[in-house]
C-alpha cells in the first residue's frame, strides 16, 4: 500500500486493517494527529483524506491506499502559517492544544467547501470535535474570521513582545 502524506509518498508496511492513525503516528512518526479515544468519539485524530475530514483512528489504512492525506503538519509551517492557523493563534483558539490539529483540519475542510462565517454552520461542521478545555467560542470565532478572509497582525501575539527575557532585573 502507498499513501501520500503532506505531499510525500510513503510505502506502508503495517497490516491493511491497521488504523490510519497508528500508521501515521507509529510507522511514519507523523504525530500531529492525536489519539484521544481510539474509538471515533473525540475528533483529535481527524485528517483530510483526499480533502475529506476523516477519523483516522477508525479508518483502516487499506481504505486510504493511494489517497492523499493532509495532517496539521501539511497546513502550514511556523514561518508560513495557513490562514486558519493564523486565525487560531489570533483568537487564542488553542488552549492545551490536544484537540487543535483535528479542529484545524475539520475547519479547513469546511472552508474549502465554501463555508461561511455563520456560527451555526461552523458548529455543525465541528460538531464531532471535543475540546475538554471548553474553548469552543474562541474556536468558532477563529473559523468565522478565517471564513471572512480576515488577515491578522500576528506581531501583536508573536512571542517576544512581552516575553523577552532580560537580565537587568524585573520591571
Amino acid at each position: 500500500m502507498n499513501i501520500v502524506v503532506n505531499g510525500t509518498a510513503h510505502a506502508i508496511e503495517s497490516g491493511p486493517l491497521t488504523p490510519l492513525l497508528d500508521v501515521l503516528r507509529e510507522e511514519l512518526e507523523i504525530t500531529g494527529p492525536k489519539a484521544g479515544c481510539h474509538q471515533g468519539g473525540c475528533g483529535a485524530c481527524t485528517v483530510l483524506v483526499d480533502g475529506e475530514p476523516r477519523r483516522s483512528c477508525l479508518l483502516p489504512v487499506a481504505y486510504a491506499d493511494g489517497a492523499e492525506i493532509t495532517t496539521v503538519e501539511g497546513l502550514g509551517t511556523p514561518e508560513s502559517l495557513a490562514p486558519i492557523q493564523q486565525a487560531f493563534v489570533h483568537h487564542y483558539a488553542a488552549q492545551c492544544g490536544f484537540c487543535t490539529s483535528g479542529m484545524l483540519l475539520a475547519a479547513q475542510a469546511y472552508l474549502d467547501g465554501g463555508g461561511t462565517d455563520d456560527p451555526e454552520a461552523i458548529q455543525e461542521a465541528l460538531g464531532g470535535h471535543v475540546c475538554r478545555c471548553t474553548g469552543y467560542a474562541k474556536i468558532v470565532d477563529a473559523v468565522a474570521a478565517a471564513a471572512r478572509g480576515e488577515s491578522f497582525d500576528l506581531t501583536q501575539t508573536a512571542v517576544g513582545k512581552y516575553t523577552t527575557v532580560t537580565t537587568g532585573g524585573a520591571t
Partner: protein
Amino acid sequence: MKVVGARIPRYDGVAHVTGRTTYVDDVRVPGMLWAKALRSPHHHAAITKLDTRPAAELPGVHAVITWEDVPLLEYGHLSALGIPADEPLLAKDDVRYKGQPIALVAAESEELAAEAVERIEIEFEERPALLDVRQAFDPEAPKIHQWGNWYPHFEGGMDRRQIRKGDVAKAFEQADVIVQGVYRPAAIEHAPLETQVCLVVPEPNGRLTIYSCTQALYFSLGVVAAHLQVPLNKLKIVGGTTGGGFGGKVDTATETMTSLLAMKAGRPVKWRWTREEEFLCSSTRAPWHMEIADAVTKDGWILGRKMLTLHDSGAYARFSPYGLTKHSFHHTGAYTIPNLEFDGYVVFTNRVPTTAMRGFGVTSVSFAVETHMSRIADVLDLDPYEIRLRNANRIGDTSPNGIVYTDPSTVPTIQAIAEATGHELSAEFRTMTNEPRTGEWLPEHLVAQLGNPEEH
C-alpha cells in the same frame, strides 16, 4: 499594567497550530518497551493468589512488577506533611477499588504486554463493597479501610474537620424559621483528551529521565523518589506539556510504576492509558454529601448554620483532607454567618480515589450554599438577590476560619449581576456598599449578641 487588557502571546500558540508541540506520547526513543497493567476487576476483594511467572515466561516480555518490587510500597500524597500513608503503589493483600493496579508488564508491544497480563494467575475472595458515603459513614457498615471508614488524622488526632464560631444554639433559639437542605453533587471525570501517559528512559549514568504529562512536576518528583528510595538527583522529569488535566493529573498516576519497569528491564518503557482506563480507573472529582440547616429570621438574616459534610475520598486518602479543609473554610460562601457549627468527614468508599478538579473542595460547597440561599428566599418569599446582599460579606466581617475580610467583593458582584440581568433592586440594596456594618445592617439579635457594631 503591561498585561491586563493587553493582547499577549501564548508562548506555545504557534507550536499548537502547527502540530509541533511535543506531548509525551509524541516522544519516541529507540528500544522502547510498552507497559500494560493488571487491574482489579472487583470493587473490594482479598487477593488469595498472585503468580506472575506465566507472564514473565512469555517471549518478548522484559519485566513484570508487583508490590514486591517497590522499595517503599506506601507513600501518601500528604506524606510530606507528616500524614501517614494508606495507599500501596501496587495492591498487596487486598484491592479496594475496581481498576486498582496489581501488577504491570513491559513487553515489546502493547498487544504482547496485554497478552502477558492475561496470563497472570490471580484469584480473589470478594468482599462487600461500599459505593456511597452515607453507607460508609454508617457505624454499622463493614470496615473497608485500615483506618476505619473515615480519615482520622486531622490536627490533634481529630477524625473530622471541625469549625465552631459564635453561639449556634442561641442562634437557633432566636430563629423564626429553620431552613434545611441536602445537596449531593456527583462524581465528575476530568476526561482530558490526552489520557495518562508516561515514558521513562534509564540513562547510562544511572539516572532516570521521566517524560510526564503531570500538572505537578516537582510533586511527582518527590513521590517517585520516595517510592523508589532514591535521591532526587537520580531523577530528571521532563514535563510542562499537558494535553488537558483539570486537576486529574495532579496525583502521580503513572511515573512511579513505569520507572520501576524501566529499571527492571533496563530499557525505556512507555505506559499510555486507554480511554477506557481513563474513564474507569483514573481519579475523579469527589461526590459530596452536604446537609445544611440555617437559623433564619423572617426578614432574611441568617443567624446561624449547622452543616455536615461527607467528602467521598474513594478508596484512599490522597489529597482529600486538603480538599475538605478548603471546603470548610468556604462553607458560608460569599456571605457572613456569625454562628457556625461545621463538621466535615473524609469518608472512604470502594470508588476510585478522588482528587483535585478546578476549585478543589470549593465548587461543591458553592453549589450547596448558592442553592440554599435561593431556597431560603423561596421559603420566606423574599428577593433572592436581596437576601444575598443582606448577608453579604462586608469589610471587617470574618470568614468561618477567622480571616478578616479587608476588601470583600460580594456586594458589588451581586449588584453587577442584578444590573446585567435587568433585575430591579430596591433603593437600599442598590446603594449598598461593602463598608463595615453599622447597626442598621445588623439584625437586632446580633447587636444584642455582639455588642457595639462599631467594635465588631
